[in-house]
C-alpha cells in the first residue's frame, strides 16, 4: 500500500500508536461528579437551564442557547446540580459550567450500542430535516477537535451546494487511536452515520479518507461499504501516512486534488468534511435519540498506568480519569489534552473532558522533544520550515515579524492562513517556537482588529 494520495509538505513524527492501537474501547463508569462546561463548541456559549439543587436525569439538557451556531449540553449522569459557576476549561482556562453530583443509586451507565446498527441500515427512513434536527437536539459538534456545531455544517446552502462529503478517518496525530478503534469496532455505526450525514447535507458522493498505517481499519470500512449497498457513491481513499493529513484543507487536497481558497471554508468548493467520531455520534443521535454525553478518548503516553481507549462521560475530570486508568507511573512532564502536535497542555487536573477531547497524552521528559536543548538558537535560514509547511507559508519570516513587533509584515506573509499544525516547530533545528509566535501574532491581530473603530 505504498504511494497513496497525499498533499505537499508535512512531517513524519514518531507515531507511538502501538501503545493503544490494540486496546478495545472500554466503558468507564460514571465518576462521582461531572463538570459540564457550557462552551464546548464554536459559537454562542450556552446559558444554564438548571439551577443549584435541581435533580437531573441522564441525558437531560443542562445548557442551551437560542443562537443558530450553538449546541446544547446534556448531562451524562443522573444526579443533583452541585454548582453553576466558573470551572476549569481546557482552552478558555475558566468558563461557566454546571457541576453535577452523581446519584449513586442511579441506573446503569450508558453503554455504546454499535450492535444496533447492521449492514441492512436504511437512512431513507429519516427525512433530511429530521436528521438535522436530531443533530441539534443531541448537541452534536465536530468531535475531531474544532467543535463546530454539526447542525450548522449539515444545513444545505443553495448558494454553495455541497457535492462531496469527505469522512475524516486519518487520525494523523501521534499517540491517538480513538478514531481507529471506532472504525474497527463500530464500523456499521460509523457507516450508518456517514450515510445519514450525506442524506442531511444532500451530497452526491462520499469519500472516506484513511491513512495507510491503519490497514485493518481500511479493510473493515471497505467491507462495510461493500455490504451496505450504495458502494457506487461511497469510496474509501487510502492516504499516505503523514502529519497533518487529518487537517481539513490537507485532506481535501489529498482526496480531491483541490485547494480550498485561503480564508474560506470547504463549502466554498462544495465539500463537507466530517470526523468519523461525529458520524458515529450522529447515527446514535438520529436512530436512538441519544444525546452526545459520552465519547471515546485515548488515554495514552509513557506516564500512564493503563493506556487505552475509553468510553468516557463528557465532564469527567482528568484527575478522575487518571485514577481510573491506573494512575501515573512516572513523573509526567506534560499533560496534553489532544495529541502532542496540536494538543493543549493543562496543569489543573480538575479540568473536565469535553466533547472535543479525543485524547489525553501524558508525556515524560524524554519524549518532550528538546527539553534538554530547549534554549532556542538564532534562525540559520535553513528553510526546513518552508519545506514542511502544508500551507506553503514562510513560518520563520512570520515568526520573526511577530517577534520584532511588526504585525503588518506578518500579515503580508499570510499569517492568518496558518492553521497552527506545528510542523515548522517540529522540524526547526534551532528549536524556535515558530508556531507559538505565529499563534501569538494571530491573537494580536484579532485584538487589533476588534479595537478598530467601525
Amino acid at each position, binding site marked *: 500500500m505504498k504511494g497513496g494520495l497525499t498533499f505537499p509538505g508535512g512531517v513524519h513524527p514518531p507515531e507511538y500508536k502501538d501503545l493503544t492501537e490494540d486496546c478495545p474501547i472500554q466503558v468507564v463508569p460514571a465518576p462521582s461528579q461531572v463538570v459540564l462546561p457550557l462552551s464546548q463548541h464554536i459559537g454562542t456559549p450556552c446559558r444554564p437551564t438548571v439551577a443549584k439543587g435541581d435533580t437531573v436525569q441522564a441525558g437531560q439538557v443542562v445548557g442551551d442557547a437560542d443562537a443558530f451556531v450553538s449546541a446544547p449540553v446534556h448531562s451524562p449522569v443522573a444526579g443533583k446540580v452541585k454548582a453553576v*459557576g*466558573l470551572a*476549569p*476549561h*481546557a*482552552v*478558555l*482556562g*475558566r468558563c461557566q459550567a454546571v457541576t453535577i453530583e452523581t446519584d449513586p443509586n442511579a441506573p446503569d451507565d450508558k453503554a455504546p450500542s454499535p450492535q444496533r446498527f447492521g449492514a441492512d441500515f436504511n437512512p431513507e427512513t429519516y427525512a433530511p430535516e429530521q436528521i438535522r434536527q436530531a443533530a441539534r437536539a443531541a448537541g452534536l459538534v465536530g468531535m475531531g477537535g474544532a467543535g463546530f456545531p454539526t447542525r450548522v455544517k449539515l444545513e444545505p446552502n443553495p448558494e454553495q451546494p455541497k457535492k462531496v462529503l469527505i469522512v475524516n478517518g486519518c487520525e494523523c496525530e501521534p499517540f491517538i487511536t480513538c478514531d481507529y478503534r471506532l472504525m474497527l469496532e463500530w464500523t456499521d455505526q460509523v457507516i450508518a452515520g456517514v450515510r445519514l450525514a450525506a442524506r442531511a447535507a444532500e451530497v452526491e458522493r462520499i469519500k472516506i479518507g484513511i491513512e495507510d498505517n491503519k490497514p485493518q481499519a481500511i479493510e473493515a470500512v471497505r467491507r462495510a461499504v461493500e455490504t451496505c449497498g450504495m458502494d457506487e457513491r461511497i469510496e474509501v481513499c487510502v492516504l499516505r501516512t503523514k502529519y497533518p493529513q487529518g487537517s481539513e484543507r490537507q485532506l481535501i487536497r489529498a482526496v480531491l486534488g483541490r485547494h480550498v481558497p485561503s480564508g474560506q471554508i470547504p463549502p466554498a468548493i462544495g465539500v463537507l468534511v466530517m470526523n468519523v467520531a461525529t458520524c458515529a455520534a450522529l447515527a446514535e443521535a438520529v436512530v436512538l435519540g441519544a444525546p452526545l454525553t459520552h465519547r471515546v478518548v485515548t488515554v495514552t503516553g509513557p506516564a500512564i498506568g493503563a493506556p487505552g481507549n475509553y468510553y468516557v462521560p463528557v465532564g469527567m475530570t482528568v484527575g478522575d480519569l487518571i485514577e481510573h486508568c491506573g494512575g501515573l507511573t512516572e513523573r509526567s512532564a506534560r499533560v496534553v489534552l489532544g495529541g502532542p502536535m496540536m494538543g*493543549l*497542555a*493543562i*496543569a*489543573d487536573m480538575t*479540568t473536565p473532558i469535553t466533547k472535543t477531547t479525543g485524547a489525553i497524552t501524558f508525556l515524560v521528559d524524554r519524549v518532550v522533544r528538546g527539553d534538554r536543548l*530547549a534554549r532556542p538558537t538564532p534562525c540559520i535560514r535553513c528553510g526546513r520550515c518552508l519545506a514542511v509547511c502544508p500551507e506553503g507559508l514562510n513560518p520563520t519570516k512570520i515568526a520573526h515579524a511577530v517577534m520584532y*513587533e511588526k504585525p503588518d509584515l506578518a500579515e503580508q506573509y499570510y499569517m492568518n492562513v496558518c492553521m497552527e499544525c506545528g510542523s515548522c516547530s517540529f522540524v526547526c533545528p534551532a528549536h524556535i*517556537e515558530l508556531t*507559538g*509566535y505565529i*499563534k*501569538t501574532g494571530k*491573537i*494580536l491581530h484579532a*485584538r487589533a482588529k476588534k*479595537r478598530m473603530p467601525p
Partner: protein
Amino acid sequence: MEILGQITEFWRQAWPAAVTMIALGSAFAVLLLVASLKLKVQADPKVEEVLAALPGIDCGACGFAGCSSYAKAVVADPKLLGRCAPGGAATAARIAEILSLSVGGGSAPARPIVYCRSHTEDRLFYASYSGIDRCTTANALANVQACKFGCLGFGDCVRACRFDALHVVDGLATVDYDKCTGCGACSKACPRNLIEMVPFTHEVMMVVACRSREDGKTTRAMCKVGCIACGLCARQSDLFTVEDGYARMDTERYEPGEACETAMAKCPTGVIVYRGKGAPPPRPAGQKPARAAT
C-alpha cells in the same frame, strides 16, 4: 604695467559673461519674488502656536499620528481639545487660550491602573510554564497560573510603554507614575484587559486592585491578595460596589475620607490599595486587617 595690461585684456573678454550672469540673477530674483507672492501658502499661525504648546513626544494618545497632526486637527475642530494625555489640563488650557476658547473645568488626566496586586509569591501555580515569555502567548494556555484574571507578569505592557514608565516587579506590572504620560498604550497591550485608564481626580487614588470573577472561596485558594467579594468595603462607603465577583471603587466620585480609610483597613485580604504618584505601599500580603474602632 604688464599686470595692468593683462587685467584689461581679461576684462575685455569677460564682460559679456559678467553682464549675462547679473542679468540672469536679477531676472530669477524677480521671478522668485513674484512666485513667493503669488503662490504663498497660508500657514495658520495658530497651528504653529498650538504645536509649540504640545509636548512634542508624538505618543499618539490623542488618536492622531503625532503632535503636528493633532495640532492641525484641533485648530480645525476645537471639539478635539483635551485629547492630549501627556500635556493634561495645562496644555488644554494653553491651546484654548490660543484658540480663544474657554475650557470648562478641565478633565482630570487619565492614568493607567493595573487591577491586580498579586506578586509571584502571592499566587497559586499548578505547573511551571516554559513557553514563549509573552503575556499574549501565555494567556492562550489554560493553566499558566491558577488565576485567569490576574497579571501574568511577562510584560507585554512594558514592551508597549515608550516612556519607561512600567516595570514588572516580582511578577506584577507596576506603573511608575512619575514617568507615565497617560498615553494608554499599556492598556491596549494587556491581553487580560487588566490595565484601565482612569481619570486621576486626585494625585493618589484608592482602588480595589482585583478583577477576579471567581467566587470568594476559589479566589482565596488561588491568590493571597484577591478580592473575595465579601462586601465589607461596600458597607463602609457607597463608593464601593460588589458585582461579578469583585468589588470596584467608583473612581469618578472618589474623595479621600474616613469611610474609605476604614474600608481599606478592614478589607480582609488587603486588596484595596493606593495608586498614583507617591502612593503609600500596600499592606503586606497575608497581614491581618486592622481592628478599626467602631
